């Protein structure tokens, strides 16, 4: 076993980087990654920068969700009509038991964080996921080039008024 300083790829601080919404090549790559992660339900691995059997840890800032189950939709105080303008996605056809699942991106406002709103199981469950700035501490390990990733996430502040960018 040996410890050595190794150059590894990490996510840049995307403070001034406008690529995620502006640069077409970046958008295509990021959307493809989103689809890949969704389909595989795991981190898309990258090549080991330190050999076939090694591990390293790095930190970076990025977005994270904090999701809370609010229970049956009708017992929540969420007024979909009020927040409709801030939602990005398909509107629900009817708010009754025939609605098995409905999810929309919530761009938030001055008082409501951006994130996701999901109603499911015939309105028996309401999931609100708020978008946060977070610090990731990510441990990456490779065993025979097979990657394993473990994240420790420290949430900072929720993101309000996301549409006002």
């Amino acid at each position: 076993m040996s410890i050595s300083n190794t150059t590894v790829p990490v996510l840049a601080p995307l403070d001034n980087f406008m690529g995620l919404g502006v640069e077409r090549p970046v958008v295509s790559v990021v959307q493809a990654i989103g689809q890949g992660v969704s389909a595989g339900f795991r981190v898309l691995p990258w090549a080991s920068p330190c050999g076939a059997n090694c591990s390293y840890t790095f930190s970076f800032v990025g977005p994270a969700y904090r999701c809370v189950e609010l229970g049956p939709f009708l017992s929540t105080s969420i007024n979909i009509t009020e927040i409709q303008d801030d939602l990005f996605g398909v509107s629900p056809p009817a708010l009754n038991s025939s609605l098995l699942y409905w999810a929309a991106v919530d761009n938030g406002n001055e008082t409501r964080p951006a994130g996701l709103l999901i109603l499911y199981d015939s309105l028996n469950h309401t999931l609100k996921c708020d978008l946060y700035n977070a610090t990731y501490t990510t441990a990456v390990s490779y065993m025979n080039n097979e990657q394993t990733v473990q994240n420790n996430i420290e949430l900072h502040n929720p993101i309000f008024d996301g549409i006002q960018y």
Partner: protein
Amino acid sequence: MNKTFWGPTNLVYINIYAGEQLNGLIWVNGHLQSEKTAATKWPGLGQWTPGLFGNFSLITFADLATNVQDLLTNFTVSLVGAHLNTSQLSNVTSTLVVNQNVPAVSTFRPVIYAYDAVTLWEGYACAIGITMIGVIVGGYMLYRNGVAGEMTFSQVLVTTRNPTLDKICEGDGVGGKYLTDRVRKAKLKYGLLEPRIGKMGLGTEDEIHSTG
């Protein structure tokens, strides 16, 4: 470590891109279920039970609170592996992925040989068994023939000295396509040709004597 947080544009768009995998709806339309969402292809949504005519009859939802959080986490971390052609970028002031020096722990895994008597004897037993069969058959043939033959011309020459064979071959000196049926169909046998002097060779079936 740089604690500068993501810019608002990037936050809004990562929320939209993550939401693209989930937004939309599934509803009961009469007796059937209809879907208008990519989430049905997301393993984190739950367990579908296939129904009649290729429709889905029932869904058991998974722990969405955990799975949705994990989706954005995995999405964010996966950006580290993004392969961008930076020559196509124009309006950016930084890049998506940077290199950083960190301590990495490397483990060397040497090849280790372990003795296992059973595994060893499996290989040896096969080799010894096949060799013994060859030795026994070869020894018996050596005993029967009385000599170890060779695949040389001289060996062919001495084992084909037989006046009967000369007679059969008479007139077929050129060989090849001029060989007669008499030669082609002659049934020959190898064995004890002349018991008196112990000569082995090829002859017609009735010429060869038993060596038993």
